[in-house]
């Protein structure tokens, strides 16, 4: 038990220490009036707002955003992996789809938000759609690029054993692509959080992005930053979760 705690401290202690230092500097900067609190509220004010709004923040808005992130990430994960794999197997698909994929990333959300609303209305799906749009790209690229990497000797060996493309894919290419894929997933899960936030700007009735926008129009910066704090926390937790998964999956693999 104690050693676990120690490991945990070793892992995150330094970050926490730096964070605490920075937060203190921040507090001091705001208190000294170097930055007006309505532009950058003091950490204590943010904390207060967090406590005051804890019920709606934790009870309503956080779960709503989290749900959007989960659904969006889930779909991106499945779709992105499938697409990356398909593009790996089919040169034609790759040539046709890659440009569209890039196009999808360069379109500013503002331009297609009306289209999303037309298609999905103000349901959760318009937010999920934005999340997918944002998370899809890194997953596809990292899957596709990961599968491209090396291992041709292993592939040849399996061929001589009579293995088909699919078997080789499963037994050689996937294990070798795993580091790259996990790298993409880590990015994607973080983007999902900001994707959901942007999605909530298209129209929502709950969620941290919605809350922050509303508070922003009320000029309550402390509440805006309270929501952002929770968003960041969500991003970090999800990232750590994928990192953990990565360690578990790759642990005894490519060493």
């Amino acid at each position: 038990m104690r050693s676990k705690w120690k490991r945990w401290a070793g892992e995150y202690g330094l970050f926490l220490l730096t964070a605490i230092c920075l937060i203190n500097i921040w507090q001091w900067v705001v208190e000294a009036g170097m930055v007006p609190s309505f532009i950058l509220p003091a950490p204590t004010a943010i904390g207060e707002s967090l406590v005051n709004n804890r019920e709606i923040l934790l009870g309503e808005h956080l779960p709503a955003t989290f749900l959007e992130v989960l659904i969006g990430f889930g779909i991106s994960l499945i779709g992105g992996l499938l697409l990356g794999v398909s593009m790996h197997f089919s040169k034609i698909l790759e040539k046709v789809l890659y440009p569209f994929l890039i196009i999808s990333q360069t379109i500013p959300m503002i331009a297609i938000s009306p289209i999303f609303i037309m298609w999905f209305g103000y349901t959760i799906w318009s937010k999920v759609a934005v999340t997918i749009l944002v998370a899809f790209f890194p997953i596809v690229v990292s899957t596709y690029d990961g599968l491209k990497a090396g291992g041709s000797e292993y592939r040849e060996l399996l061929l001589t054993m009579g293995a088909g493309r699919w078997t080789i894919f499963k037994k050689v290419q996937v294990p070798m692509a795993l580091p790259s894929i996990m790298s993409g997933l880590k990015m994607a899960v973080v983007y999902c959080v900001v994707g959901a936030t942007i999605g909530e700007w298209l129209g929502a009735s709950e969620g941290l992005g919605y809350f922050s926008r509303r508070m922003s129009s009320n000029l309550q910066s402390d509440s805006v930053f309270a929501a952002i704090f929770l968003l960041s926390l969500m991003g970090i937790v999800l990232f750590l979760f994928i990192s953990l998964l990565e360690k578990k999956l790759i642990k005894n693999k490519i060493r």
Partner: protein
Amino acid sequence: MREEIGLSNSNMLHIEDLTYTFDRDMQPIFQQLSLDLKAGEFVSLIGPSGSGKSTLFKLITGLLKPGQGKIQIAGNLSSGRLGKVGYMPQKDLLLPWRTVMENVLLPSEIAKEDKREKAHEIRAWLSRFGLKEYENAYPDELSGGMKQRVAFLRTIMTGRELLLLDEPFGALDSLTKRTMHSWLLGLWGELKKTVLFITHDLEEAILLSDRILLLQNRGVLEYKVNLPRPRNSESIYQPEFISMRKELERLIQHEE
């Protein structure tokens, strides 16, 4: 036509007029190479480093496509030779993310055989090969010779009739090698496998083979080993054996 089919049917491996070139602007590695392996034969392939022994194996397995000529396995002239022979590559090529057991199970997995049963069988083999305690070790925890033994075992587990072994015992000490020899001879005698065997050890070649093929630029030179079977490792000190070895050495030197 009929004759050709008849001829090839009796052979496990039939290669005719094989020509292969890696790069267009380079010299061909083989020109008009022909050879035959009867079912149940044990044949060694020797030749200078870089003469194309491993390349020939890759052609037979179907990994490379011949430029000209044909390759038949058990009478089947098909381009789909992949998966028809047991091939042990020169590098061990153990998958680094799989344990010894998982690596040896690979051919069975591909053939969709019952894993549990096979694992049992493999465990028996592992202890015969002196690898009993390494079932769950990863390749990077093994010594060079151990890796080779695992790769060899993996090839055996393909269960094919024709085995192509590319320097299977190169990294083994003489004692371990001897164990493997007697074991390989046993397998070959019992199960009537056909073996094509690359080695640089002339003693090994003489001890194991019915015939020795000398691969050289000009083609293949055959040398028949007229020693009675069963043979054992003591044979190498017999005068016939030593004279054979000297003859073979002369042949190689002469060819150069």
